[in-house]
């Protein structure tokens, strides 16, 4: 095992290099810890039970070059945090070689090391030196740091009186102004209000322009696709895929969907369903424009919802409907055949009906689909299947970024624009 840590980026060398790196942890952390235990084992000459190890990372090799913006995706427990901790130097590999060339700054623990009794200004010096800056370097940056953190007069107040927002803003501000070569981000940027988040994103763009290297761990594939130039999919301590963020997220999603499908067939009972059953909705499928059944789509693409039904006997004029909820529970849409003026005739046996969305207005996120069929007077529910399926929307052609839907509107003004939208 060797670990090399230099504080300058080396030309012709990757910024971060892992060669067959494994990291083991004991399963029982406090096992055999006290002297008493050791002593007893020695005296009784009993062999100590073998240590039970698990490996969050197994033989991982990875080279990250200067300027790479690497996204790391994978399920919980895949080894993502272990990877970040290795890069920061908080832990060392059990086996394998690791080299880090450049100053690392982690946004994982904003404000770690702040001293509550000291003022904001004093804490900037303390925190800056934790990141390895000297006094002169901090002197040069202090005005920018204070400015960025938007603390105003509070800068000379002990930070135990700060709100949590002020605390994190100061932490971020110090971290980003240390001019790191390597920035580690773990799902953060949920820092402060929307304005401040904007500022954080802008400063990360500035970091990119200066040629910085970023590692971003996130469950939000959309963020990874929009921020990163490269992505790895980490699972069970191995790198399953390494490449363009879009390709890697697709591969990951497909694997996840496959797994969810196998699980959901067993847990069907937990999805809520009621109705008289005179017409039952057997299945609901989501298809792309090409007719492929999928559970992820890009904003703006054509999506077709196909409901497969079966009627017991002849039913006249049923109304089919569906509802789309955001994962946070917001009810976004609820079209049905009645509202859209489609009056069905007699329905008999098996059949299908489709709802076509020419351009999906949803923005990135996870959405659920609920489907229902009721009688012509909306007094008898034949079948209601709450959250029969879920799908994910990725950032596509839509230029909107915030919220859940793209309104599809446009701007106009008497001011002569310098450029017009494409």
């Amino acid at each position, binding site marked *: 095992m060797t*670990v090399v840590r230099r504080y300058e980026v080396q030309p012709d060398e990757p910024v971060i290099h892992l060669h067959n790196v494994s990291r083991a942890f004991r399963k029982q952390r406090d096992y055999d810890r006290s*002297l008493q235990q050791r002593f007893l084992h020695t005296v009784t000459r009993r062999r100590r039970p073998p240590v039970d190890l698990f490996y969050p990372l197994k033989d991982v090799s990875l080279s990250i070059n200067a300027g790479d913006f690497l996204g790391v995706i994978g399920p919980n427990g895949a080894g993502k945090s272990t990877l970040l901790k290795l890069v920061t130097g*908080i*832990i060392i590999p059990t086996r394998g070689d690791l080299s880090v060339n450049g100053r690392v700054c982690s946004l994982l623990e904003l404000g770690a090391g702040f001293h509550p009794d000291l003022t904001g200004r004093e804490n900037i010096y*303390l925190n800056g030196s*934790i990141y*390895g800056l000297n006094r002169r370097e901090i002197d040069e940056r202090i005005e920018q740091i204070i400015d960025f953190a938007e603390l105003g007069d509070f800068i000379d107040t002990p930070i135990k009186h700060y709100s949590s927002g002020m605390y994190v803003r100061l932490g971020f501000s110090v971290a980003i102004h240390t001019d790191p070569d390597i920035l580690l981000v773990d799902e953060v940027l949920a820092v402060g209000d929307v304005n401040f988040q904007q500022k954080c994103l802008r400063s990360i763009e500035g970091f990119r322009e200066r040629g910085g290297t970023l590692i971003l761990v996130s469950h939000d594939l959309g963020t990874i696709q929009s921020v990163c130039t490269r992505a790895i999919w980490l699972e069970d301590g191995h790198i399953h895929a390494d490449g363009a963020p879009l390709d890697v997220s697709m591969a990951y999603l497909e694997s996840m969907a496959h797994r969810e499908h196998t699980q959901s067939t067993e847990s069907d009972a937990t999805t809520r369903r009621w109705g008289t059953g005179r017409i039952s909705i057997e299945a609901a499928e989501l298809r792309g424009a090409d007719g492929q059944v999928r559970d992820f789509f890009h904003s703006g693409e054509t999506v077709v919802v196909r409901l497969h039904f079966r009627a017991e006997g002849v039913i006249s004029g049923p109304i089919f409907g569906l509802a789309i909820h955001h994962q946070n529970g917001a009810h976004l849409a609820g079209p049905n055949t009645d509202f859209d003026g489609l009056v069905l005739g007699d329905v008999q046996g098996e059949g299908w009906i489709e709802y076509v969305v020419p351009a999906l207005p949803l923005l990135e996120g996870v959405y659920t689909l609920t489907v229902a069929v009721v009688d012509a007077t909306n007094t008898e529910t034949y079948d209601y299947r709450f959250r029969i399926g879920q799908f994910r929307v990725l950032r596509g052609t839509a230029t909107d970024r915030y919220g859940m839907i793209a309104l599809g509107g446009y701007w106009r003004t008497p001011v002569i624009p310098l450029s017009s939208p494409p």
Partner: protein
Amino acid sequence: MTGITELLSPLHVTARVRELWRYRELIRNLLSSNLKSRYKNSALGFVWSLLNPLGMMLVFTIVFGFLMPDVRVENYPLFVLTGLLPWNFFQASINAGMYSVVGSSNLVKKVYFPREVLPIATVLSQLVNFLLAFAVLFVALVVFQASFSPWLWTLPFVILIQTVFSTGVVLVLSTLNVFYRDTAMIMEVVMLAWFFLTPVVYSVALLPETISVGSFTVPLQRMVYILNPVASLIAIYRDLLYWGYRTDIDFFVRTALTAIAVFAFGYWFFLRYSDQFGEEL
């Protein structure tokens, strides 16, 4: 696990020392925030670092000066102070330094920096306290017309030697305390014993020159100095400030070498295990 040979390689050690030098600003800031937070919430603030040894001096003067006059040395209060202040510095360094890593577990688990910064900053902040208290003692010595040694100019070196020695011990103890919290419990007793085995409140001349253990004759007075570097240090302080002697140069050098050896071992020991602090805490 880094091999022992690799750790001892000059390349590795210079890399670690250079890294430590990069973080000198952190040592300074930890030092000043230690001091600031210590005095911020107490009404008397810094005065406490003076009142504490003065109070102890009073206690020992009453106990040994009046209740047990046999132990009495001429100008006993000054005698006690010249030993007690360095001893307090040593004891405070050990007690605070032992917890320097464990007490900063939040930081150690979250951010990387050379971990030796923590014990070093702790010992240095005790040094600052000591120097402040010492300045006051110095005034007292002048007022009471103590006999200063012509070798008084060596005093800064003595303080340096003590700092190096204390840092070495603290490096070992702060490491052990990460892995075995028993260390702190054991040290409570050890420090008490150490205090009485060090001629702080009594003069070494009070000890029998030799004692017999079975058929062996042990030169007790010499042993105290050989086995106990703190006793040697305090003897030097007293030579300079109380007795007005000139310390033998070989005694001085021997004490310095012991301190350097202890520091080198402590630093090696700390580097050997500090990589594991992040996961053990």
